């Protein structure tokens, strides 16, 4: 596999370093040729930066792509927003040579050039397409057979499709495939593709953000999901942090939220503490306990089978 650069974005290293940790741990476990690269800035975030100044949004994203272009590296990011923003700008510039020239006139003055060659992929489609299900399955020590989870894609993992092109924007499959490869059953709630709504917290509408989180969490509770699995720091903030805030106010959901890299790490035999699961606001304990209980149960069943075999066949 070709070497690739990790694009961490701002939110993970700043607010959720434990998600950076689990990402590094699973990549090491798989022996992926991942590199940390100097010189990336904010992707930049769309709702804040693009609404204020479209030109600066374009220029900043183009510069980040240029950094990867120069090194001849592709980019992989555990953040859906970063991938969507970088890809959107890359697509716009590649389709518009005049605009690219304008952007490059400025970039050249700081010694950069946007070529748009670097491939930009979110971690989930990257694991699905480049690492591959077989290679992942080979690293699994214990699967999640018997566990029922809901996969939350995060809109920007696959939208806008014209810029990202890694999965169906209205009926995505790859995240489900990965989670099923780990043995878990993936449920299909009606709110499966509903946007998390975290963006509302960034425009002073916290109550509306909670309202949208609540809709999904209540459905998950009703259908008996053991966890919500996602791979975007913004969605994580919405479902872990905001769920916790609502629970403090007396609402009850009890839906553990797991980052894909954490779920994979657990399957690889990494310990919950090592993966930083204690740093979650919503207790992941019930998920782990149920999973542990399933092992006990399988062990007991295996023992009984053995006993019966002995009796029957001596």
């Amino acid at each position: 596999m070709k070497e690739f650069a990790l694009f961490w974005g701002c939110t993970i290293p700043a607010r959720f370093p434990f998600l950076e940790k689990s990402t590094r741990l699973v990549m090491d476990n798989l022996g992926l040729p991942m590199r940390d690269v100097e010189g990336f800035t904010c992707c930049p975030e769309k709702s804040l930066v693009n609404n204020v100044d479209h030109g600066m949004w374009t220029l900043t994203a183009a510069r980040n792509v240029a950094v990867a272009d120069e090194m001849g590296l592709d980019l992989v990011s555990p953040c859906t927003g970063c991938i969507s923003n970088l890809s959107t700008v890359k697509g716009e510039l590649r389709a518009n040579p005049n605009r690219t020239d304008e952007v490059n006139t400025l970039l050249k003055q700081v010694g950069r050039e946007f070529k748009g060659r670097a491939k930009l992929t979110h971690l989930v489609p990257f694991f699905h397409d480049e690492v591959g299900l077989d290679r992942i399955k080979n690293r699994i020590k214990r699967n999640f057979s018997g566990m029922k989870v809901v996969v939350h894609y995060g809109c920007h993992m696959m939208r806008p499709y014209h810029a990202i092109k890694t999965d169906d924007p209205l009926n995505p499959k790859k995240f489900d495939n990965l989670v099923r490869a780990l043995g878990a059953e993936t449920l299909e709630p009606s709110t499966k593709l509903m946007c998390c709504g975290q963006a509302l917290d960034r425009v002073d509408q916290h109550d509306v953000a909670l309202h949208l989180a609540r809709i999904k969490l209540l459905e998950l509770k009703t259908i008996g999901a053991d966890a919500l699995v996602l791979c975007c720091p913004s969605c994580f903030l919405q479902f872990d942090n905001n769920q916790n805030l609502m629970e403090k106010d007396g609402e009850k959901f009890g839906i553990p939220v797991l980052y894909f890299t954490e779920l994979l790490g657990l399957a690889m035999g990494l310990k919950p503490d090592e993966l930083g699961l204690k740093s979650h606001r919503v207790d992941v304990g019930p998920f782990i306990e149920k999973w542990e209980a399933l092992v006990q149960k399988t062990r007991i069943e295996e023992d009984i089978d053995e006993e019966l075999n002995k009796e029957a066949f001596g």
Partner: protein
Amino acid sequence: MLETRLNFKLLEMCADCGACYNVCPSCLHIEGYDPRAVIRDILAGTHERWLTSKHIWQCLECHHCLEICFQHYGFENAMTALRTLAIKKGITPTQVKKGWDMFAKSGRLGEPSPMRKRLGLPEPPGSAKEEFLKLHSLYRESRLPRKGKV
């Protein structure tokens, strides 16, 4: 002024269509969020009242409308255009203003947490702040258009 930013022909179709109300999370779940009412006002040139409305900030930029739209256009373009206009008039949500200021000053939305060290994570790679600031000031002197046609 909005004519230069938005494609009014496509918006006219929107004003009649509304197919994406069935997938738009904000249309489905937020009371009073009604993009077609906004779009009709844009077409009539009477959109001023929306600039102070919280509704224009309730588009989540989830791109669901864009993907199902037979014009591949979507409500979000109208919302983005109005947000940009509102910001220009100084009607900016506090969080957006704060976020922009932090971005413009440092090129980032938050610095790597000191907690990283305790987790045994490597030193964070440099973020090229100086280069970013230089680029930003070159940009301000340049004539690169600040607003995209969407």
